[in-house]
């Protein structure tokens, strides 16, 4: 039975990705029978390169994508190097799960409110420090240089990279290497830089590439925070795809292919930079410089992480406050009139999208977990490891491009099954995250437990469900929760594959946020957030409850 695992995964996930990506190629060269275009030509590419502002869009994409990735990476590595096992570290560990649970769209909505010219930050300091009674005429959100987008993305990615790093570090003997390095006279952060980070980075390469791919091709956050004159390339392609005129679909296909190639090129760039750094930095590692106290970089890192934590909390708080606000004129610090009416009025409405989100998330997260356990058990029994690169492929390719390809394929073949397609679309992105979160613990599981139990005469299946899974319950539940959260925050698969028929809290939140009704947007963002937190709550609470029951069972 287990033998089916590789075929199942390839059929469910691999083949459609390839098919979808391939189906971008024909329309990009003007072959699109559904629109009556049957002659090959390079017209879409010409129109693409001639579109006003397209080079700016392209550079904006590179700038925000690479910038956000580098910012979050340096912040994460800096935090590890300077704050390992300090008080800050413990605080960060506690907040890691809640920070991860905040979905991107909710974060973007809250962040937009925080930094807007009429946003909370300015309200708090006006008119006391600024003397303003009107918001200034600044462009802080949707600013033309994409700084708001870049900053928000980097803030959102730090917890993810930190989690992946912590997992990778548990495989490295950090304590003793730090001891060893310090005994040689190196200051702790130098030990990290010269000894531990070079060992860490290969393990977090894939998550870094995933962050890069996301940042380059993000649509939902860019719609809320990103520039729109012109927009980033991904947003532009998204608009083209939605345009009624079919010619725009061919240009969109060309744009999606461009995004794909750009992402691969940027990943290649990171690989190149890493290789060059290693080569050129070889002697630097052993030149003996022990490093000073590192007060300034340490302080900067602590401030950066502190700001990240504070910002995230204020984002969540801002959402709550706005959802309860009736009147909140500038420059009041808090609403002048509060009311529950926003929630009450919207309560009749958000039931459906909430239900849809929860149903999809439950089905997909459980399905993904089952598939992941199936695949991992297959690998564990045959002592093989599938290449992580293949597993994480959906995270490394632009979501927009792949989904468009699949959608175009669906149009061509007349496939109508929207809901199954939406489920599949979610599964495609949930599977790698669940896999990544579980891989470390699962493959580190001591096989002797199973051998002992099998030797006692039980069947494989029995042993699996009674011995292995219960021992792995914590990481399994945590990975499930992550999968649930990832499904809740999906935007493009629901919209593109579902053709707008299955509004979820995320699609609603984006639609309302781009429309401008902040109170409604806050409500939907909070619903998104609460759904995600709910899953983490179960993941963290269930083992404790089980343990409590077991304990009570003994003594009660």
């Amino acid at each position, binding site marked *: 039975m287990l033998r089916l695992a590789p075929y199942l995964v390839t059929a469910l996930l691999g083949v459609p990705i390839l098919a979808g990506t391939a189906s971008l190629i024909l329309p990009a060269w003007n072959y699109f029978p559904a629109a009556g275009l049957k002659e090959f030509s390079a017209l879409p590419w010409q129109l693409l390169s001639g579109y*006003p502002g397209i080079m700016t869009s392209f550079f904006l994409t590179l700038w925000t994508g690479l910038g956000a990735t580098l910012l979050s990476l340096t912040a994460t590595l800096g935090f590890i190097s300077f704050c390992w096992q300090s008080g800050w570290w413990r605080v960060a560990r506690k907040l890691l799960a809640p920070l991860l649970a905040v979905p991107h769209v909710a974060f973007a909505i809250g962040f937009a409110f925080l930094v807007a010219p009429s946003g909370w930050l300015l309200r708090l300091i006006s008119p006391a420090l600024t003397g303003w009674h009107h918001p200034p005429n600044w462009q802080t959100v949707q600013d033309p240089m994409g700084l708001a987008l870049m900053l928000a993305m980097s803030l959102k990615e730090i917890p993810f990279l930190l989690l992946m790093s912590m997992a990778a570090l548990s495989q490295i003997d950090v304590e003793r290497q730090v001891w060893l390095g310090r005994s040689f006279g190196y200051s702790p952060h130098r030990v990290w830089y010269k000894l531990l980070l070079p060992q860490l980075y290969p393990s977090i390469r894939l998550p870094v590439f995933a962050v890069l791919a996301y940042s380059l091709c993000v649509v939902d956050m860019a719609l809320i925070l990103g520039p729109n*004159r012109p927009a980033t390339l991904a947003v532009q392609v998204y608009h083209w795809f939605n*345009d009624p005129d079919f010619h725009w679909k061919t240009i969109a296909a060309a744009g999606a292919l461009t995004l794909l190639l750009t992402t691969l090129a940027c990943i290649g760039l990171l690989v190149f930079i890493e290789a060059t750094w290693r080569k050129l930095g070889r002697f630097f590692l052993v030149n003996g410089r022990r490093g000073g106290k590192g007060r300034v970089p340490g302080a900067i890192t602590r401030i950066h992480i502190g700001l990240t934590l504070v910002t995230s909390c204020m984002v969540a708080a801002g959402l709550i406050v706005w959802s309860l606000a009736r009147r909140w004129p500038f*420059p009041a610090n808090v609403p002048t009139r509060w009311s529950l009416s926003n929630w009450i009025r919207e309560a009749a*409405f958000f039931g459906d999208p909430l239900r849809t989100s929860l149903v999809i998330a439950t089905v997909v997260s459980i399905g993904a977990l089952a598939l992941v356990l199936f695949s991992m058990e297959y690998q564990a029994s045959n002592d093989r490891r599938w290449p992580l690169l293949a597993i994480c492929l959906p995270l490394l390719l632009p979501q927009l491009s792949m989904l468009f390809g699949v959608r175009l394929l669906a149009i061509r073949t007349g496939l109508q099954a929207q809901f199954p397609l939406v489920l599949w679309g979610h599964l495609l992105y949930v599977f790698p995250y669940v896999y990544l979160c579980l891989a470390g613990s699962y493959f580190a599981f001591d096989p002797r437990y199973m051998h002992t139990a099998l030797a006692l005469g039980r069947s494989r299946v029995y042993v699996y469900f009674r011995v292995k899974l219960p021992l792995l319950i914590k990481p399994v539940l945590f990975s499930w929760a992550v999968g649930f959260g990832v499904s809740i925050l999906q935007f493009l698969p629901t919209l593109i594959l579902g053709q707008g028929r299955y509004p979820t809290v995320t699609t*609603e939140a984006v639609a309302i946020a781009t429309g401008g009704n902040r109170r409604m947007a806050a409500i939907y963002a909070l619903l998104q957030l609460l759904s995600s937190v709910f899953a983490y709550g179960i993941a963290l609470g269930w083992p404790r409850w089980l343990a409590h029951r077991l304990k009570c069972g003994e003594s009660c």
Partner: protein
Amino acid sequence: MNSHKLIVALAATLFLAVAPAAADWRTTLDEARNRTVYFNAWGGSSEVNQYLRWASEEVMRRYDIVLKHVKVSDIAQTVSVILAEKAGGRHDNGSVDMVWINGENFKAMKQAGLLYGPFTGKLPNYRLVNLRNLPLNEDFTIPVEGLEAPWGVGQLNIIYDRAKGPFPGVNSRVLLEYAQKHVGRISYPKPPQFHGSSFLKQLLLELAPDTSPLYRPVEKSDMVQVTRPLWRYLDRLHPVAWRKGRAFPTGSAHMKQLMDDGELDIAISFNPQDAATAARNGTLPPTVAAGAMEIGALTNCHFLAIPFNSGNKAAAEVVINFLLSPEAQARKADTRYWGDPTILDLERLTERERGLFDPDFHLFAGIAEPHPSWQTALEKMWQERYGH
């Protein structure tokens, strides 16, 4: 005596004319039972969404029809979906059963043969429609020909705060002076969002010395010349506009939010009662009001249509008929809910039905929409000049 016979004969004829129609309608109602209608409509206003929610509950209760509001940000996307279905040979059981359209989208659908109909003659409530006073036989100069049913009236109006001063949108000159005096507090939604495009049309109708070309299809030859006054005006407005004209709000709701935040002093809406509704539910300060420009508010009607390949045409007709009913129109026009003006002729209603409406409500003096090709042309030219 003769006249008496005449009346009886007339009544008999009328009855004979109406009876089959009544029988037809009953068949339609039967066919419609237990169907699901997918209604693609703009979802950018929570008032509209809440109204449609009420409507869904009503049609379920009365007719056993499930009405699903598919929220779209731009109905043009739905048009392209239906077009794709037609090109793909899907002539029945299409994914869309009802659409909320007007203007250039109606034109596109009509020309591509994507509409079912004519059907409005079949609807019992259609006889209550105000064909006398409202230009309901033409949609942006394109003949309707029964292919879409009128739903409400849109009038471009500018929302402002009475507490801050007099109406700044009387005409383009006053608006420009206001913007120069209060820098960064005036803007309009970014075309091709329809509020923004309509604002361009409104301005052009005032600034153009001769508006007759605007009511004909666009000619490439005079396009630039006719629109020149508009671009000259905007070139003067943008430097003193919000964000110096380098960024624009995304739509009407965004403008209202910015107005609430204190970043803008005006908002643009198509619903003449939007200001009243917003003041009532707290989205805007209680002192807001709406005003129209002195040449007349750009007025159009918006409609409901049925795609040619809907698999639930009878149910869609029943829903549309309900939406034309006095109860539904009255609730729609009520500022507690949506506030969109009715297209019914109040004089054709019974006393009780008339009492459901606000007697004090009047539309602004209006000015008709130009030919739809001008909207496309204006959007394109705006994009070239200011879009990046």
